[in-house]
């Protein structure tokens, strides 16, 4: 199926890296760069979420909360308490990971789909905290004045500079995911998805693995959140609501559950769609809902894979038709 891409994994990574280096040299329109930066941030979240959904077969509707935790922790610690930004990103990832552990482990031990509701409930609680703890978070009007990231004298204060920063991390996320997927751990996750009972009898501690991949996906989201905070220098609870959780889930599904490159594709496609619909923002909800539903009903393997399979089937059907008419010889 996409074994072609799998075997040439390093080639595609190389092309990807080259594209990242070259694009800002040719694309001078700031708006396009900003959109691509958003795609980059979403890619980090979606790639992580895909590990949970596509491989461990679990659903989370709470990744907006982890994204938001990364953003707020970085924002508050670096602005109010003058922590150094780079270590803070790391601290935020660890903290978010720990919280994810406490939410995830009890839910994942249970048979059935409890993680869905636990993450949804959790993300609503987090959102309420973001709004109501306004002394710390700035409340509904948001939290301004977040410093840009910098390395020595180089300050990441422009969209172009942030492009390189963000996409370096997107690249690393994809790279790490690909490593994970094609390894012992990746196989164990796929095994859990294939048959949890059998996986257990082969020595895989399924509860531990499911929890670890959930924590990992939360940490990816936290990283993206921190980068977002330092990029835009202003955050508000509106960016971290239930609708964002639905958006990233839709990106995973559209790109194809279980495909790392697919996550990048899904993130790109739907971020662009969002931008197009930005003119009439009220169409966002119905658009995402419709896409999610249609893809799941008709192309559950994802848009690319689904269309590819459809094309293959048409080709084979045409071949059979021709053989029937001409007769095999």
């Amino acid at each position, binding site marked *: 199926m996409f074994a072609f891409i799998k075997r040439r994994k390093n080639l595609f990574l190389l092309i990807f890296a080259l594209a990242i280096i070259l694009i800002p040299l040719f694309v001078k329109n700031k708006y396009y760069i900003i959109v691509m930066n958003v795609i980059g941030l979403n890619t980090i979240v979606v790639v992580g979420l895909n590990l949970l959904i596509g491989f461990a077969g679990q659903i989370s509707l709470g990744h907006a909360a982890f994204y938001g935790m990364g953003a707020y922790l970085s924002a508050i610690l670096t602005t109010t308490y003058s922590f150094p930004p780079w270590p803070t990103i790391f601290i935020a990832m660890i903290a978010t990971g720990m919280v994810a552990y406490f939410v995830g482990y009890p839910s994942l031990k249970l048979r059935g*789909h409890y993680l869905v509701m636990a993450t949804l409930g959790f993300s609503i609680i987090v959102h309420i905290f973001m709004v109501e703890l306004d002394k710390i978070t700035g409340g509904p009007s948001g939290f301004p004045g977040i410093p840009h990231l910098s390395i020595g004298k180089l300050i990441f204060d422009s969209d172009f500079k942030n492009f390189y920063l963000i996409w370096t991390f997107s690249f690393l996320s994809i790279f790490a995911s690909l490593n994970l997927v094609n390894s012992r751990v990746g196989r164990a996750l796929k095994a859990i998805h294939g048959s949890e009972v059998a996986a257990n009898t082969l020595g895989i501690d399924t509860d531990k693995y499911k929890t670890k991949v959930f924590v990992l996906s939360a940490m990816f989201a936290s990283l993206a959140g921190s980068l977002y905070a330092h990029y835009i220098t202003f955050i508000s609870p509106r960016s971290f609501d239930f609708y964002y959780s639905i958006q990233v889930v839709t990106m995973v599904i559209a790109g194809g559950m279980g495909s790392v490159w697919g996550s990048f594709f899904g993130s790109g496609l739907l971020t662009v769609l969002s931008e197009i619909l930005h003119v009439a923002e009220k169409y966002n909800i*119905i658009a995402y809902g419709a896409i*999610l539903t249609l893809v799941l009903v008709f192309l559950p393997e994802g848009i690319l894979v689904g269309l590819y399979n459809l094309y293959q089937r048409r080709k084979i059907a045409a071949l059979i038709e021709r053989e029937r008419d001409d007769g095999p010889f």
Partner: protein
Amino acid sequence: MEFHEQISQYIVSGLTIGAIYALVALGFNIIHNATGIVNFVQCEFVTLGGMMMYTFHTLLKIPLLLSFFLSTATVVFLGVLIERAPIRMAKSKAIIVLIFITIGISSTIRGTALLTWGPDNVPIPSFSGEKVIRILGAAILPQHLWIFAITIGVVISLQYFFHHTLIGKAMRATAVNRRAASLVGISVNQMVLLSFAMSGGLGAVGGIIIAPITTTSYDTGIMLALKGFAAAILGGYGNSTGAIVGGLILGVLESLGAGLISSKFKNAFAFFILLLVLFFKPTGLLGHGEAERV
């Protein structure tokens, strides 16, 4: 207001909203028992109950009782449509995919509601006026009494349905063991269809009867339904008595929490309770090992 009067008030409003949670929880349970999925469209069943009431009764001036039935019927029809179309047509029947589909449908309906009615809250008139009655120091509106009465009526009807009609027993049989049920001639597909219709009805009724008190909008259903789900878990997922007990307890706890501890975090209470239940007693108050370890 005296302290004990305040408590009475909190308890009354808690029981009121708790009744709605109970209805929604029952809706979740019915579909879960029949199909094994978590049905996110339950959120929209609740929203649409209220919004259709607004359309029929407030905008089109159709009389109350007729509007009530029309609204409920519309949502029931929608439930049937959803089961017949996207759920039936889905290429993959994996539970994770079906749950995702309900998430997608829910978003689609919500998006449509936003485009149809706009983002604002809309009012629905109370069923029989606003004259306050005082019982044990609490101010009770006629609408509260309607909510209690209708909920009790619905619960009793459901009890009768599930225990004294053939179809109801068939549904219970399907929930216990699908294969055995189909082997004795029960059409599992019809049971699934029926479960969607009933959940639609329950959600709609819940949305309709609470709307005069809380007003309604394109996304009121989300909070109500999610808390209804929390109530279902609290009472023991899949257990109908649990749904009712869970709903009422959750409503009261939430109301007391908002009144006595903090009203800013009111919405968070229900979800705190949900997480606590999942952590410490996942089978809920009345459940029997439904949420077992793998």
